């Protein structure tokens, strides 16, 4: 699995800044200084097909449907680099984006997602040293409150054999309700905040349909982009676009941990109950717009329940599933996800504010309510909107989330030492290890790389492409010793070719 986050970018006092250039400046500043050798491996687009649909057809490539067409990006010369931790750091549209390396578990998602925040903060610091550059602020949020949203997408590798209809049926109610745990909180109702108020999710108001391929127009709760970056016969990649970007480590951990559990149950054909919700798009918004968590959604079977209760239904299924399949042999992380999930849901039922050390929307709301009562502010106060925005500022000294952490007000999942290491080191148990270590060890010889290949230029007639189609190969156990042994990229290519 992995997580990709687009950051909001702004140059204070310069509202007319070209955001693509500002984003490029940030990414290039990081990339140029990171590899002292000056190597800049480019991204290899050969295997990418973002218009392939999980339902089994392919859309014609039209700018209206997909303005991310790789050719355009190349033409613009937008920054696009691979880091030694296996991540991709680039400019997507007008936002700097950090796509984490592939990892195998929720805790590692948290680790490399946090590392992405630190990379962005460092990139902005370095951009400041460019002569004449104005300070660029980066925000890990999802909207400018003026009608625009940008994403934080999760990716899960699934078995190709899983029927897509089952995914849609069982995942939609889960996505409608999981915001009570992993919403990031937002001041303003409606895509352009035309109504004053607070809501649980940054993204809920931007979703218009139940299922679809688009990510920028008519956003769907279930996205059907089917581009596995792996053997398409064996795998599909579930591209999840409905999540908020979380600052809280517990929220990210639960977001991907609980989603993984639900996906495992779907793959395994476990669900015997149908939790389908009447009007899921409207239900998504209604749950988001009620931070008291009292709103009742109606299920197709006629039952009415709150978002928290709907999550409880999923939790109960997951608890039984894990008990049935693993019993006492359950791995500690799965057990931990279940236990935290149950604890958070239980407390959301009784007293949501008791989750202020764990969940973004609750922590943000408690600050906002503090301001409202101390300074008698209404929800349309620009100061409250500023608190909302600055909560997501990646700078340690300015970001309000980061200030809360500094004061010991947030429960954490990973250590800062680990996060710093993850800025440069890849995970050891996926192909990201091979990609990242090749970049670190042979920076001059890696001509290009992508999720499923590394291309070497070792001075021969043609470039040497090493495919990495199997996400669980290219691990430290698999190639660590080989990479240690090969002093040059040419040695590596020869060894892989059996020469």
């Amino acid at each position, binding site marked *: 699995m992995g997580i990709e986050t687009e950051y909001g970018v702004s140059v204070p006092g310069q509202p007319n800044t070209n955001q693509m250039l500002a984003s490029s400046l940030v990414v290039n500043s990081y990339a140029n200084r990171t590899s002292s050798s000056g190597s800049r491996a480019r991204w290899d687009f050969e295997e990418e097909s973002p218009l392939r649909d999980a339902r089994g057809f392919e859309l014609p490539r039209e700018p209206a449907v997909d303005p991310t067409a790789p050719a355009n990006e190349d033409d613009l010369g937008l920054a696009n680099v691979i880091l030694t931790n296996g991540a991709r750091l680039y400019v997507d549209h007008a936002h700097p984006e950090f796509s984490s390396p592939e990892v195998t578990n929720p805790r590692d998602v948290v680790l490399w997602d946090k590392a992405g925040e630190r990379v962005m903060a460092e990139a902005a610091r370095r951009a400041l040293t460019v002569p004449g550059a104005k300070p660029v602020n980066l925000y890990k949020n999802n909207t400018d409150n003026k009608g625009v949203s940008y994403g934080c997408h999760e990716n899960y590798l699934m078995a190709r054999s899983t029927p897509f209809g089952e995914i849609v049926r069982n995942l939609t109610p889960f996505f409608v309700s999981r915001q009570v745990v992993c919403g990031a909180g937002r001041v303003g109702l409606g895509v352009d905040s035309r109504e004053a108020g607070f809501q649980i999710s940054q993204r809920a108001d931007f979703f218009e349909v139940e299922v679809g391929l688009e990510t920028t127009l008519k956003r769907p709760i279930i996205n059907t982009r089917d581009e596995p970056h792996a053997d398409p016969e064996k795998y599909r990649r579930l591209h999840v676009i409905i999540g908020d970007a979380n600052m809280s480590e517990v929220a990210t951990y639960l977001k991907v941990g609980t989603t993984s559990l639900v996906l495992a149950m779907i793959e395994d054909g476990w669900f015997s109950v149908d939790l389908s919700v009447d009007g899921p798009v409207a239900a998504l918004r209604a749950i988001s717009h009620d931070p008291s968590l009292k709103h009742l959604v109606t299920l197709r079977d006629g039952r009415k329940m709150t978002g928290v209760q709907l999550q409880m239904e999923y939790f109960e299924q997951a608890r039984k599933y894990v008990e049935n399949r693993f019993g006492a042999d359950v791995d500690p992380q799965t057990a*931990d996800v279940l236990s935290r999930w149950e604890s958070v849901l239980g407390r959301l039922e*009784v007293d949501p504010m008791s989750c202020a050390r764990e969940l973004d929307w609750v922590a943000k709301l408690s600050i906002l309510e503090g301001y409202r009562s101390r300074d008698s502010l209404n929800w349309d106060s620009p100061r409250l909107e500023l608190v909302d925005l600055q909560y997501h500022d990646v700078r340690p*000294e300015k970001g309000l989330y980061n*200030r809360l952490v500094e004061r010991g007000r947030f429960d954490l999942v990973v250590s800062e030492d680990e996060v710093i290491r993850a800025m440069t080191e890849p995970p050891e148990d996926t192909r990201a290890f091979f990609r990242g270590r090749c970049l670190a060890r042979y920076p001059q010889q890696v001509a290009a790389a992508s999720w499923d290949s590394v291309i070497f230029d070792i001075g021969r007639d043609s470039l040497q492409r090493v495919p990495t189609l199997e996400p669980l190969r290219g691990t430290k156990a698999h190639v660590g010793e080989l990479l240690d042994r090969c002093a040059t990229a040419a040695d590596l290519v020869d060894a892989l070719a059996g020469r």
Partner: protein
Amino acid sequence: MATRDSGGGQQHTNRRADEADEVTTEESEASDLKERHEKLSEDVDSLLDEIDDVLEENAEEFVKGYVQKGGE
């Protein structure tokens, strides 16, 4: 500095859940809630003072100037 750990946070949440289980009568539940809310609001007051110090100046202009282009 924050308490970063993988196990401690978990014990913390478990402890809270256990406490909640022990509370049986609605009355004590309510007073427990009230107590927690009071403690929370004291905490929030001191936190707001610190946030005041780091919050960007001229909130209205700042949020108005935060305009993004579409993404994804």
